[in-house]
């Protein structure tokens, strides 16, 4: 559980090995951060607020080993080639000590590839693609959030208890959507061989024809629906689904829908009883301190992105403190197995694949007044939603 002491724990840990870091200079430690601030502001603006809170906390408590933390942030305009261009500027001109950030999966992968080539540490916050730590895993890349696979795996124990045997899926037609559907099918089939998948809808990202999609899903007469849609697509889908009665009497499993970013726009139309991953804001005792600090500063409740940004920076501070250096090799060693705190509880960066065990919440959607929220939630630790180490090693090659 995160207490006030825990909040500042990372900084305190840094004090343990001051000598080496000091030896590298007295100026601030510079973190180069790149993210899609204009292309995906709904997530990245709260995210930026989150890391700003963390930076201020770290610096207020004396920084890492007596050196302040400074974040140089850039907007990648949603383009991976722009992200790496700016990463080059951060490394070569601004002389940052390590790289961080990323919302879109392709930006994360490009940054990872670029960082590996430049031999710099890159800590990804949000990008979900499995490839980031598996097929395209790099020694210099760590990732905080649960991957696509983990998101699905976290819901699976509950999903497997649902009665539905005829399933339909709906996902945005690109790598994230396709791979979420693939994992759901694989994992569910493994647990319940009798289920069948009767329809797959793959609307184009941001361009869903919601009425037709809902109608097509209903036409397949499934008794369970697996949804990967998010953002404006999800809003359109839910509204058509509600009016046309798609969700009535059906089990729905839906990735990320419990995150405030995607749940709040649904408003009083939030469907009840969906099995989702997300973040029950205001309900998690461990997160109260963080939520209060955030509310205080930005006059609104934090989002999932806020927690990711906040935790990302604290985890990086913890890693630097542990390494006692900003040397890439030493940082990698320090990050492998690095314990750090988050508003959701303690986590580590796994040594085997550099994936964070920072978890997420699995629960049911519910309507409270005219706002959507999560009930019956429980925190799922990221370490419990992983394939075996042997499988991971095989994937990482």
């Amino acid at each position, binding site marked *: 559980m995160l207490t006030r002491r825990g909040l500042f724990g990372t900084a305190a840990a840094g004090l343990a090995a001051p000598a080496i870091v000091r030896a590298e200079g007295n100026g601030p430690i510079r973190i180069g951060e790149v993210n899609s601030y204009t292309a995906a*502001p709904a997530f990245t603006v709260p995210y930026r607020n989150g890391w700003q809170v963390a930076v201020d906390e770290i610096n207020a408590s004396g920084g890492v080993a007596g050196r302040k933390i400074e974040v140089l942030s850039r907007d990648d305009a949603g*383009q991976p080639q722009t992200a790496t261009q700016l990463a080059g500027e951060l490394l070569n001109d601004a002389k940052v000590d390590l790289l961080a950030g990323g919302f879109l*999966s392709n930006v994360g992968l490009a940054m990872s590839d670029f960082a590996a080539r430049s031999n710099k540490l890159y800590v990804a916050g949000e990008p979900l693609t499995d490839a980031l730590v598996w097929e395209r895993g790099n020694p210099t890349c760590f990732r905080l959030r649960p991957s696509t696979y983990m998101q699905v795996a976290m819901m699976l124990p509950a999903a497997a208890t649902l009665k539905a045997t005829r399933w339909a899926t709906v996902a945005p037609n690109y*790598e994230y959507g396709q791979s979420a559907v693939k994992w759901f099918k694989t994992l569910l089939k493994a647990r319940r061989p009798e289920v069948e998948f009767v329809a797959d809808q793959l609307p184009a990202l941001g361009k869903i024809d919601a009425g037709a999609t809902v*109608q097509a899903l209903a036409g397949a007469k499934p008794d369970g629906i697996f949804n990967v849609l998010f953002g404006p697509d999800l*809003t359109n889908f839910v509204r058509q689904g509600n009016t046309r009665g798609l969700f009535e009497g059906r089990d729905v499993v839906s990735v990320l829908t419990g995150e405030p970013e995607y749940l709040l726009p649904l408003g009083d*139309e939030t469907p009840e009883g969906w099995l989702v991953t997300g973040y029950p804001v205001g309900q998690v005792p461990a997160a109260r301190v963080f939520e209060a600090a955030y509310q205080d500063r930005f006059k609104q409740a934090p989002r999932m992105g806020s927690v990711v940004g906040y935790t990302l920076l604290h985890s990086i501070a913890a890693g630097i403190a542990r390494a006692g250096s900003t040397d890439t090799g030493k940082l990698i060693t320090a990050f492998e197995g690095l314990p750090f705190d988050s508003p959701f509880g303690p986590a580590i960066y796994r040594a085997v694949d550099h994936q964070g065990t920072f978890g997420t919440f699995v629960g049911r959607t519910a309507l409270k007044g005219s706002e959507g929220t999560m009930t019956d939630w429980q925190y799922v630790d990221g370490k419990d939603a992983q394939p075996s180490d042997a499988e991971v090693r095989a994937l990482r090659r």
Partner: protein
Amino acid sequence: MGFLLVHALTGLAGASSLFLVASGLTVIFGVTRIVNFAHGSLTMLGAYVGWTVLTRLPRDPAWFALGVAGTAAALAALGALLEMGLLRRLYRSPELFQLLATFGVVLIVQDAALATWGPDDLTISRPPWLRAYVRIADERFPVYDLVLIAIGPAVLACLWLLFNRTRWGRLVRAATWDREMVGALGVDQRVLFTSVFALGAGLAGLAGALGLPAGSANLGIDLSVITEAFVVVVIGGLGSITGAYLASLLIGLLQAFGVVLIPKATLVLVFVVMAAVLVLRPNGLLGRGGAPTALAGTATPVRPPTRGMLLGWGLLLLAALAAPLVAGPYALSILTEAAVAVLFAASLHFVMGPGGMASFGHAAWFGIGAYAAGLSAQGLGVPMPGALLLAPLAAGVAAVLFGAFVVRLSGVYLAMLTLAFAQIVWAAAFQWVSVTGGDNGILGIWPPAWASGPAVVYLLALTLCAGGAAVLQRVLYSPFGYALRASRDSPLRAEAIGLDTRRIRLAAFAVAGAAAGLAGGVFTFVKGSVFPGFVSIPHSMDALVMVLLGGVQTMAGPVVGALAYTGLYDGLLRATAYWRLVLGAAIVLLVLAFPEGIAGAVQRRLRRA
């Protein structure tokens, strides 16, 4: 049967939504000839303004209707302001210049909307009457969709009456044909154009507000709406409102049934349909052949380069070659990107300026080259020189195959067919994950060790790209280049003196495709990766912006435009969080200051002096 009926109705509702956006676009284009890229932004503003209005009003149907009407009126007023403040000053410029201005507006609106309404998707809470449904053949069907189904034809009928039964409509139709003559007959055509633009913007606002009950006001509306609206307008025939409605029906129904039959193909379906329609009917369903649709603007004579100009180019090249001596790694990476941009822009200029074929999908060739280099290098282990050879080859071959259909068309239709092809390529790159890696792209395609330093990469890119651009220039001063301009200036005369204009245009298309492909191949090794974004509409727009900014009718235009745009973009991206606002404003100001492009303005000044 019931299932089919409900699907058809769903398709009709979708068609109405499409038509509302497309009707405004086609009205504006038909009369003012403005390719209004900001129409999606107006629709988005309609959604946001609608949200602001509707969340403050009582939620019964009468107030809802009033709120929607108010939103449409507000957007009409905004459209009038936009026309009077910006577009009115550009009617004498080449047509695509107005597109450039509206592109600037798109960027400005994106940031303005974010700053005004925040990043969250905004929804209006639906009262029971908006959630109501009727049972049709045992399926639940939203009442609101029935309302939409009725609104489409109602708007169509109103527009038809307005254009055919009022004096205003007759004047507008006359102005469509010959605006100058209407003025000479005593009609203030500025008022006419302002009112037409306001009408179109009002329709966009109507579409945005009416979309709220089924969705949300969000920052993605502008771009998601604009391409489909253009597709509808082009399929229907530019300027034809009835055509736009027919096209909306076609697309709406195809979408509805396509979702059931081929759910994976929904993204490309509309573009395949557009390509098919344009191949069969080069002017769309109800488009007329005679109306002018040329895009390139009036041609000015091209003089062979003077000694002074050649000297200037030489000095520029020398400076470029000396850059590694003074520039740091980041500055070099920007210069490398600029070199690629120069070839990309020069290749578009080749078909667009001398060729007279404006392309909205030039990124297709860049992307095919990039993927050819990336896939061959990574999948087949082809070494870099081989991959760099394959890039222009693949793009050139693709350009020949596809160009055969393109060169039969002209003007906006041609531009939109290239866009359709680029979108099909993009969809393949984005969705065919097993081959292209989807949006995660292909990574780790770095040059071999001997060419890995920033200076070597830069010099390599400079050599290939400046060399490619120089080759394109050389070709323009050859008999082939003259024949190409001849085919643009007067196809009638060109054929009458024995030139095979289609073959010439096709060859030019292939050369430009290959050059863009080479730029894409080089970019792949510069970036070490390939992403679907290379083929995307924004990337095609980048090329257009560079060429137009520099000046279509000057040989130096693409170089100047590429350098200016790359510099602006990179500089602003680092300088300010509101880079879109500033970049958009910069484009608008440049357009107003240099209505012939930067190089065009300089050239004019030199000639005068």
